[in-house]
C-alpha cells in the first residue's frame, strides 16, 4: 500500500458538512450540545468527540465582494509527526504503510504532550482524558475502503487516494498551491488551492517545536523515574503553557 492522502479542495466545498456527520456516524461519536454563536460554524472547535469540522470563513475581498470559504479543520497526518515523536508511551503511531497517524487509547496516559507538540494544535481528549483526533478511518482504509468523510463528500472536495497521484492530478488541474506537499515531511492531508494558504486560514510554514527531541527524551526519563505524567506536571515543567 502506497502512502495515502486526503486531497482537500476548498474551491469545491459547499459547506454541507456531510463529512462532519459521516465522521460522527462511522466513529460512533456523540453530538455536542451546541448553541448558535452568531455563525453557522459549529461545533466551535475540535473536541474529544469532534474529529473534523468545516471552518466557515467569511470575508470581503479588495473589490468589496463577499467571499465565503469552507475549509476542513482536522489532523493533517504529518509525514514527520511531532505528536508521535513526543509521545512518551508510544500511544501515538505512524502507520508505516499508509502514513496515517493513529493512536491506541489504551496506551495513552493523557499527559497531553501531543497537543503541546502539534504544529496545528489538533489533539483533543475525551472525557477520560485520552487522546482523540482524526485517525483517517484507518480501520476502513486497511479494509480497502475510503475514509467516511471522503466517502460521503458529494463534490469531491475531500478526495481519498494514493498521495502522489492525488498531488499530480491536482497540479494538472491547475491548482498552483498544494499546501502540505512538502510541509513537515509532507502532510497526509493536502490542500489544493489557487491562492495563498493564508487566505484559507491555514498556518503558513508550520514548524515542529525546536526542542522536540529533547522534550521527548525528558518525558521518557521522567516516566522511567516513576513520575506520573499529567497535564499539570507538563505545565509545571513548562511544556504546556498557561
Amino acid at each position, binding site marked *: 500500500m502506497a502512502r495515502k492522502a486526503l486531497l482537500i479542495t476548498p474551491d469545491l466545498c459547499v459547506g454541507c458538512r456531510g463529512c462532519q456527520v459521516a465522521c460522527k456516524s462511522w466513529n460512533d461519536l456523540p*453530538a455536542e450540545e451546541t448553541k*448558535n454563536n*452568531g455563525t453557522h460554524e459549529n461545533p466551535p472547535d475540535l473536541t474529544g468527540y469532534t474529529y473534523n469540522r468545516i471552518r466557515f470563513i467569511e470575508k470581503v475581498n479588495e473589490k468589496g465582494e463577499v467571499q465565503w470559504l469552507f475549509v476542513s479543520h482536522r489532523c493533517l497526518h504529518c509525514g514527520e509527526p511531532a505528536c508521535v515523536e513526543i509521545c512518551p508511551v508510544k500511544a501515538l503511531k505512524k502507520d508505516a504503510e499508509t502514513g496515517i497517524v493513529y493512536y491506541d487509547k489504551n496506551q495513552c496516559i493523557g499527559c497531553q504532550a501531543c497537543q503541546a507538540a502539534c504544529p496545528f494544535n489538533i489533539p483533543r481528549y475525551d472525557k477520560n482524558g485520552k487522546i482523540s483526533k482524526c485517525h483517517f478511518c484507518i480501520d476502513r482504509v486497511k479494509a480497502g475502503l475510503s475514509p467516511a468523510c471522503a466517502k460521503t463528500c*458529494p463534490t469531491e472536495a475531500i478526495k481519498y487516494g494514493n498521495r502522489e497521484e492525488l498531488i499530480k492530478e491536482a497540479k494538472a488541474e491547475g491548482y498552483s498551491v498544494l499546501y502540505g506537499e512538502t510541509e513537515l515531511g509532507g502532510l497526509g492531508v493536502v490542500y489544493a488551492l489557487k491562492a495563498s494558504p493564508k487566505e484559507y486560514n491555514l498556518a503558513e510554514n508550520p514548524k515542529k517545536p525546536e526542542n522536540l527531541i529533547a522534550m521527548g527524551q525528558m518525558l521518557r526519563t521522567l516516566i522511567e523515574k516513576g513520575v506520573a505524567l499529567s497535564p499539570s506536571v507538563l505545565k509545571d515543567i513548562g511544556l504546556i503553557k498557561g
Partner: protein
Amino acid sequence: MTNHWVDLKNADVIIVMGGNPAENHPISMKWILKAQKEKGAKLLVIDPKFTRTASKADLYVPIRPGTDIAFLGGLIKYIIDNELYFKEYVINYTDLSYLVDPNFKGPEDLDGYFSGYDPKTRKYDKATWKYQLDEKGVPKKDPTLKDPNCLFQLLKKHYRRYTLDMVAEITGAPKEKILEAYKIIASTGKPNKVATICYAMGWTQHTVGVQNVRAMSIIQLLLGNIGMAGGGVNALRGESNVQGSTDMGLLFHVLPGYLPTPKASWVDLKTYIEVNTPKTAEPKSLNWWKNRPKYIVSLLKAFYGDNATKENDFCYGYLPKLDDNTTYSWYDIFDAMYKGKIKGFFAWGQNPACSSANANKVRKALSKLDWLVCVNLWDNETSSFWKGPGMDPKKIKTEVFFLPCASSVEKQGSITNSGRLAQWRYKAVEPPGKCMPDAEIMNELYHKIKELYQKQGGVFPDPILKLNWNYGDKHVDIEKVAKEINGYYTKDVVSHPIDKKTYKKGQQVPSFVFLLDDGSTACGNWIFSASFTEAGNMMKRRGKEDPTGLGLYSNWAWCWPLNRRIIYNRASVDPMGNPWDPQRPVIKWDAQNKKWVGDVPDGPQPPLAMEGGVLPFIMKPSGVGTIFGAGLADGPFPTYYEPVESPFKNLLYPKVHFNPVARTYDSPDDKFVVGTDPKYPYVGTTYRVTEHWQTGVMTRHTPWLLELEPQIFAEIDPELAKEKGIKSGDKVIVSSPRGEIWAIAIVTERIRPLIVQGKKCHMIGIPWHYGWKFPKNGGDSANLITPNVVDPNTFIQETKCFIVNIRKA
C-alpha cells in the same frame, strides 16, 4: 425537472435564481461544479442572500426579494432588443409568431391590468386571451413577426418599460451586474450554447409564484434551451419524494397522473371527457391529451375493478367532486377548519403547526377539530399543539391520536426524485416498536372503515365498499401497488389496436400507449405506465451504461414518461431531425433506418419537416411551446407586481400594488398589510439550510444535525445591526403584523442592504426549521410571522417577502 440532476453537467450557463442548490440539494453541486471545472460553464446566482451556492458563483447578483419578474422582464426586453433569440427555434417550435385576438389588452394599455378584469370578484374573464384562428380553426401566424397582434410584438410591447434603469430601481441590483448577467444568459440563444435554470421555493412562494416560473420559461423558449441537454426549466424539488407525491395526485385539483379532479358540474364521465380532452385543428400536433379518456377510464378500473363497467360510467359517480368555482387548497382547508367546518383531520407525515404560513391561525384551527390523527416519526408541534405556547389544554376539545410510522429505510417502495426518476428502495432495518409502514396503516384503516360501512351502512357506502383494494390482509405487498400503478389488462385483448398482438387478462400493460378506454385496461397512474412491465420492476434497474456520455443512464431505474430522461426532446433537433447542437445530441433521426437514436423521443413520429412529422411540444394542443399563458389566473404574460407586503411602490404600474387576483383570507387571524407599515420597515424572507429539513421534525431529532444548526437565527446586515445595537450571537426579536419570534442574530455581509427607489432596503432572513417542542432552546417556527396571502394559480403562500422589524431582546 424537464431534465435531470446529472444533466446539469452539460450546461454552458447554470442560472440559479429562486433556489439554493448547494444548501438544499447538495448533490446537484457535484454536476454544477463539474460543468464549471471541466468545460468552463458559468454559474450565475441571483439571490437576495449570498448563499453557499453563491460562494461558488462566477457571477452573483443580489436582488430584493420578490422582484424576479422585473429582473426577468428586463432580460426578455434585452433578448428582443438585441435580437438574441434563437430564430429558427422560436418560429418553428413556439407560438411567438401566432396572432392574438385584437381585443386582448395588456397592462401597458390598461394601467397594470389585462383585459377582462372584474374588480368586484378580483378575477379575470379570459374571453379575449386567445389566438386568432383561421377558417379551419388553426391559429393564424405571421412568421415575419411584424403583425402588431403577433405574440412577438405583444411581448415587445409588454416589456418595453422594463429597462435596465427600471430593473435596477426595482430590484436594487447594481446595473452593471444586471447587464453582465443578461449578457451571459442571452449568449445561449445560439444552437450550440445552452443554459439551464435551477429554481425552487424562492420562486414559487410568492403571490406571483407561477409567473416567476413562466417568465423564465419564456426566456428558455426564446433562447431555444428547452429540450436540449444542459437546458430546460428545472424545479429542484424540496423533498426527496415530493415529485412522486405530486405525480400520485397529492394536490386537491388533480387525480394521479395530472388528470383533473372532477367538478360538480361534470356530472358524468361523458361530460368529464368532453371538458378535459383537448381538440386541435393543427395538422402536425400530436395533442397527447387526446388520450385522456383512456387514462381516466383505466384509473377508474384500477380504483373499482370489476365493479367499474361501461354501463355504470366506470363508477365515475363515486369520485368526490369539487364544487364549481371553489378551491380546496392547503389554506382553504385551514380556513375552513378555523371556521369550524372541518371535524377531523389527518396530519400524515406533516407538521402544519410549523410548516404553514401564519402558523398561529393553523394552531388555533387545530383546536376547533373534534379529532386529529397524526402519523409521524416523532411527536411534534402539530400532535402536541394543545400544550403549545398560548394554549390551555383544558379548553381544547380536540382528541389527538398519534400513529408512529416507519421511516424510509424501514420499508421498501419507490421514490421519485426531481428528475422524474423512480428508484426502488429496499428495507434496511425493521421499524422500531409498533411503528408501521404508511401503506400498512392505510390498509388497516381501509379495512376497518369498510367493516364499519358494512355493519352500519351510511349515506353513500359504495365508493368505499366497491373499491378494488387487495394489497394484502395486514402486510401490504407494495409491489402489488406498483404493478397496479403501471397498469394491467382486465380482460383478454385480441389484436390490440396498437400492435395487433394478443394480451391476456392479468398481464401487465407494456406502457400507457396500450391503455384503452373501453375498460379492458386498468392503470393507477398513466405516467408511470411502463415502470413495472412483464419484464419486471424497472425501478429496480441499476445499469450504469452511458453510451452517449450525456449522463442519461437510461438503464438506471426508470423515469416517467416512458423512461424519457429529457422531456420536449424533439425540440433539440431541427425540423429535419438533426441536433441543433451536434456536440450534445439528445436524439437524432437515423434516416437510413427511419428511427430516432439517443434518448426516448417525445413520440416515434418522424421529424417535423418529413411526412408524418409532428411538432415537439406534444402535450400542447398547438404542438408548440407557449409564450402566451392563457390558462393562468393572473394574465398571459408575467407582469411585475410588488409583494403584498412591501415597503416600496410599484414603479411600473403605480395603480396596481400587488397581483390583482392574488388570494387573501379575511378571518381575524389573517393579518396582513397591503404595502407598507412604518412599524415594520424591513423585508423579511424565510429559507432552509442544509442541516435541517422542512420543519425540522426529522433533523431536530438527529443530534448530529442539531449540533450543526442548534437554534433559530436571523441573518442581518452589519449596518442595520449597528443601528439597532445588535451583535452576532445576540438574542433578537423579529416581529411582523402577525406576531413575533426570538432568534439568534447572525450579523453578516452576506445579506447586504440594497438601494431601492433611492432608499435602503434592509433584509432579514430566517429559517423555518424550528419548533417550540424540541429542542428546548431551539426557538419556534418562523412561520408564526409569515403571511398566508397566496398565489392565485397554485395557492402557495408568499413567505419569501413580507414586512418585519427587529430589535435586541
